[in-house]
């Protein structure tokens, strides 16, 4: 642990535990008009400047991991995408890769099935990013951009609906391949729509970089320098806006990402504008990839679905994928039956919380909505860790070192964990 690290989980009952110098405390959430997601922020102020900000999460633990232990691997294919509302396809993709590796069929997946999976993933990235910068503009008080960007988002939603039968949750993937094919007539119908969307997103980029009213709200606000970013380890677009060129698709290519031309987007400024531009450029990059995939699909043939037996042999595997918000990690343990022994999901928003809190230090309170929005918070899929003593009802939140030390001791000396 470095010296810069400090616990963000203060208890504030009578103000005695507040950071030195703070004279006001603002509580946001868990239910607040700003936040669509349940999270509790405590912002300590001195005058109009933020001294420090805390976060509490854990208001919406839905128990998806526990529910997965009671269902078969095949049924879980439809439960996993429900972990997140917007990035459903990437959760399903990572889950499917875990099952394929455990069942030992990952070589049998045809190229065509992989291309269709990639189209689903990239289309999801496009609509997630457009949704995000629409809401960011709304939080910055620029509602025209919200309406314009969400109107253009309908283009990609229509394409996804045409290909998969559902707007937000395409659910195209299965262990062994994909459910539906993308026939040639549908691809031909989608191509002009994609080109139209590229033009629209370029127009959005022009608005974000040139229009004074939005640029003044985003430029030099909430700067996360590269050194700070290395300490707080953000992932996904939040890290790429601060000069950490780390993308799961480039670093550890899965599916066919190494066989397609695309560039890694990275900005060094570290402010909210850089994070926004990373996402807009990525949207353009993803749309370009969608066009490439449709071209490649014409010349690729193959079986859509390889046979996977319902019983998965014993073993464990961890798979990772690049969600629109960052790095998504799944870990599954199979015990030889048709149900998982244990399944663990680590959603990307969790990795970005600390970096975002770091961003707030020294900023004006009026910039809080924009900064809080900057990492695309998605808490309902993040809420995973809560240690509760059943006997006393005591809740404990530990850092990683304490947790590991305690777990090792409990294992070695055969002691209870608490």
């Amino acid at each position, binding site marked *: 642990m470095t010296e810069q690290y400090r616990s963000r989980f203060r208890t504030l009952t009578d103000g005695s535990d507040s950071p030195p110098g703070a004279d006001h405390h603002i509580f946001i959430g868990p239910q607040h008009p700003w936040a669509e997601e349940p999270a509790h922020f405590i912002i300590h102020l001195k005058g109009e400047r933020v001294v420090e900000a805390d976060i509490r999460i854990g208001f919406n633990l839905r128990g998806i991991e526990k529910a997965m232990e009671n*269902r*078969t691997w*095949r*049924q*879980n*294919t*439809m*439960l996993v995408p429900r972990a997140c509302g917007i990035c459903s396809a990437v959760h399903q993709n990572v889950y499917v890769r875990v099952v394929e590796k455990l069942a030992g069929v990952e070589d049998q997946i045809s190229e065509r099935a992989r291309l269709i999976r990639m189209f689903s993933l990239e289309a999801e990235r496009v609509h997630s990013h457009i949704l995000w910068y629409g809401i960011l503009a709304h939080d910055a008080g620029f509602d*025209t*951009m919200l309406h*314009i960007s969400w*109107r253009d988002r309908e283009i990609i939603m229509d394409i996804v*609906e*045409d290909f*998969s*039968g*559902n707007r937000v949750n395409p*659910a195209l993937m*299965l262990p062994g391949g994909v*459910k*539906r094919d993308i026939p040639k007539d549908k691809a031909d119908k989608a191509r002009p729509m994609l080109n139209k969307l590229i033009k629209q997103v370029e*127009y959005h980029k*022009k*608005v974000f970089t*040139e*229009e*004074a*009213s939005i*640029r*003044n709200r985003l430029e030099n606000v909430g700067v996360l320098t590269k050194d700070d970013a290395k300490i707080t380890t953000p992932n996904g677009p939040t890290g790429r806006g601060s000069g950490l060129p780390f993308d799961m698709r480039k670093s550890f290519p899965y599916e066919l990402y190494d066989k397609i031309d695309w560039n890694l987007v990275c900005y060094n400024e570290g402010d909210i504008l850089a994070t926004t531009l990373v996402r807009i450029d990525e949207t353009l990059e993803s749309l370009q990839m969608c066009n490439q995939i449709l071209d490649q699909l014409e010349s690729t043939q193959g079986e859509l*679905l390889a046979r996977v037996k319902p019983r998965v042999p014993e073993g464990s595997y961890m798979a990772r994928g690049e969600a629109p918000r960052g790095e998504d990690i799944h870990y599954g343990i199979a015990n030889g039956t048709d149900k998982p022994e244990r399944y663990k999901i680590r959603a990307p928003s969790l990795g970005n919380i600390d970096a975002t809190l770091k961003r707030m230090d020294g900023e004006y309170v009026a910039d809080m909505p924009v900064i809080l929005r900057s990492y695309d918070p998605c808490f309902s899929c993040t809420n995973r860790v809560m240690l509760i003593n059943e006997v006393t009802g005591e809740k404990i939140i530990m850092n990683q070192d304490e947790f590991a030390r305690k777990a090792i001791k409990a294992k070695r000396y055969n002691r209870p964990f608490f």
Partner: protein
Amino acid sequence: MKKVLVMGGEALKNHAKGPVTKHVLKQISDHPPPEDIRTIPRIIEDRCIMCGTCVKVCPSHCLEMEKDDKENGMIWLLKPQCMWCGHCQTYCPVDAIHIDRDPNLSVSLFSFNVRQDYEMLVAKGSYKGDVADKKLQELIDEGGKKIKEIDEFRGA
């Protein structure tokens, strides 16, 4: 370079065009759902072999089945529990299930009531006709009782 009123042209254009959501204001039944939309499963009765794969793979346990040892039986669906995922269609070994567009979907969604909760998908052999109707009526009554209990519990 910072400018003002970058979106002025767009605003004028949109003002001339009128609202984008104009078509939504019409009647819902005028707009059938798109061709390949995933909806509730429907089974082709001649093809079904009563193997029970769809019941096993259903993630939300909305399909139920009853059959005797002579492969006579029926499969029914608990409508509000179905999440339209299409697993039953994918895993059906004889392609007997299709989940694509139901022309009455938009109408049936908005005229939703307790009586329609259970829907018979397929009945075979001795379960056909009056027997199947009677079984379905039993299920509907049972479901109605449950919903009544819940309503009483809520104080409705």
